[in-house]
């Protein structure tokens, strides 16, 4: 029967025809980018903004911690003493010069982490382009939010209606106090344009190991992701079946492990018993 099994092996390529034909009916993954935009991820790192307090005072105190921490060395800050008659910031000094070079910035957000006054945060705006190098350096005037607290719409940036929503949001990995557990607690100041942003679920130190086990984080988070960021096979009903299968498989393995362990223990016990009996005899 070697011939038949050979034939069967030779015909494996037919699976490719089935798959490609199925793809005819599947939704397209291509996005018509300049025409339609993908919703931005909740924590996307875009260009920076320099924030203000409600009374219009700048939050930046010119401490240069952001410039010091920056691994790409793209921030240039010079502080200056506040003029006593009309201070720019509530502190002693303010950021007199503030420049970020976007040809160097890697959007790691360490400056945001370092900032003691939440003066610098990252928006989600990233769709901008330049025609020369000096344009890539954003100055203080360009970075500062406007009177409403929203990022300035600069002429070379591609903005659409609603693109700046939730953009002065707070991209901190930790709370200002340094604690990772800030679920349910608003530990950030308000977005001036839109008010205080509600806390996000699931960003806490609370761990549900029983539920998540050793699953990759992506799989755990799939329930929270946008549909298009989830692999096609894991969406909808099919996804539920897949998750159920995976968890059943995992439980089976766990059960098998437990059984094996129990068997080993029993074997060890009986062996011990047998040797004890033998020595007793």
């Amino acid at each position, binding site marked *: 029967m070697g*011939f038949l099994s050979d034939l069967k092996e030779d015909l494996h*390529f037919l699976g*490719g*025809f089935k*798959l*490609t*034909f199925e*793809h*005819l009916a*599947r*939704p*397209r*993954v*291509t996005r*018509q980018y300049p025409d339609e935009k993908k919703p931005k991820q909740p924590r996307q790192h875009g260009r920076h903004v320099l924030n203000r307090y409600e009374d219009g005072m700048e939050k930046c105190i010119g401490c240069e911690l952001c410039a010091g921490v920056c691994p790409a060395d793209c921030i240039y800050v010079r502080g200056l003493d506040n003029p006593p008659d009309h201070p720019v910031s509530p502190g002693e000094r303010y950021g007199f010069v503030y420049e970020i070079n976007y040809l160097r910035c890697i959007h790691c957000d360490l400056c945001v982490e370092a900032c003691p006054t939440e003066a610098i945060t990252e928006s989600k705006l990233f769709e901008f382009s330049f025609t020369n190098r000096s344009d890539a350096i954003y100055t203080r005037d360009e970075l500062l939010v406007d009177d409403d607290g929203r990022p300035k719409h600069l002429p070379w940036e591609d903005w659409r209606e609603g693109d700046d929503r939730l953009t002065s949001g707070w991209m901190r990995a930790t709370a200002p106090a340094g604690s990772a557990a800030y679920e349910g607690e608003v530990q950030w100041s308000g977005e001036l344009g839109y008010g205080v942003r509600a806390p996000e679920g699931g960003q806490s130190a609370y761990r549900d190991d029983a539920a998540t086990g050793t699953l990759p984080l992506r799989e755990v988070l799939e329930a929270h992701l946008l549909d298009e960021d989830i692999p096609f096979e894991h969406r909808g009903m099919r996804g539920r079946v897949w998750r159920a299968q995976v968890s059943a498989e995992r439980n089976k393995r766990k059960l098998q492990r437990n059984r094996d362990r129990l068997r080993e223990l029993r074997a060890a016990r009986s062996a011990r018993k047998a040797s004890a009996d033998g020595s007793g005899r």
Partner: protein
Amino acid sequence: MGAATIAAHPALSLLAGTTTADPLFAHGVGWFVWVVVVIKVLVAFAVLLVSVMLMIWFERKVISDMQSRIGPNRAGPWGLLQTLADGTKLFFKEDLLPERADLGVFKLAPYLSLLPALLIFTVIPVGGIISISGHTFELQVADPPVGILLVLAMSSIAVYGVMLAGWASGSKYPLLGAVRASAQMISYEAALGMTVVTVVLISGTLSTRGIVQSQSGGVWDWNLIRLGIVPFVLFMVSITAELTRPPFDLTEADSELVGGFNTEYSSIRFALFYLAEFMNTITMSAVVVTLFLGGPDGPVPRFIPTSDVWMPVIWFLLKTLVFLFVYVWLRAALPRLRYDQLMDLGWKRLIPLTLGWLMIVAAVVVWHWWGLLAVVVAVVAGGLLRRAFAVGTERQPQPGGPTSVGRKIVPTALLGVGARGAPPRVAPPGPASPGPAASGTPAAPGTPGAPAGGAG
């Protein structure tokens, strides 16, 4: 094949003369014949060009669908004018002539590959026979008595286009592509010719019109069924290889040969190659329909009896479209074959199979019991052949003998001994430790350096 009469055009009704408008002028020449011939040629040419444009669009769209992409959608509605835009762009590109090219041949080659593609289409019956006020003519440009031979001859001439293009470019990748192409086309032409012979055997005619008419009894009379499915499958495989379409697109294997035989071509000459390739795809799909699926006939005679003029044309287009889709599907589903796999398939599988099937069909046509005998002979011969191939491929390398790489036996001399590359040609004269470690230890003064790997 009912001859229908369509409403006579007032101008045409004034004409009188020959009964058949035949471009081969077998039934005499008159100015009415001339008019019809010119109209037929112009219509066929225009339709073929437009269908090539649509075919390129169709291929790009379908393959995008199969890869979950969108495909061209900017130029015109649903991107329909994309090909036109590309063609226009190619027109205005610089026409580069390589310095080392053989200019005459270099310029000739694109036309040499385009012309056969056009000529094959002339013998394809696209519809029935219609008559206008007493003048009957066939919906096909020409119906020579040797129609199917013309197809074979033209597909052979197309090889010249490819081969000369590669040779005349004066560059290595086109030459490699052309060598592959000619080897591939010639190998598969044998299988192609023999499947055509089975069709000719059962139809008893070489004329394409005659082949179609012999299948006019509905699905059960189609050569697809009458010959058993096998010749059809073999024909499809060999025609795909002949067209150098995926999975047999070794000629232009982008990942290996840059672009194959047309690497050095640019501008409109490149566009002509492209045009020829897609035109060939269309005409060969039409040839398959003609040879195996009854051409312009419906699945049942008079399936939709309302129109005898247009229905055959629509059937023909539908069937051709199915094959065009299959070609695109093949491209989406299958990876490219390796060169030795290609040759194995051609010489070891297809040619013996077509030969065997040809023998069986020939025997059955003569006498049924001869057919049974032929089946027995074919099975026995097939078993022997299989055994022979198995012996060839499953030979184990002997210690000290030739080593096998993949399925090929490679002489030991070509491989070198051991894992450290080529063996030293002269034994190392140094008294120090022999072997690979010698290159690491400093050679004794006065002795010639130990033959290190990269030192020579």
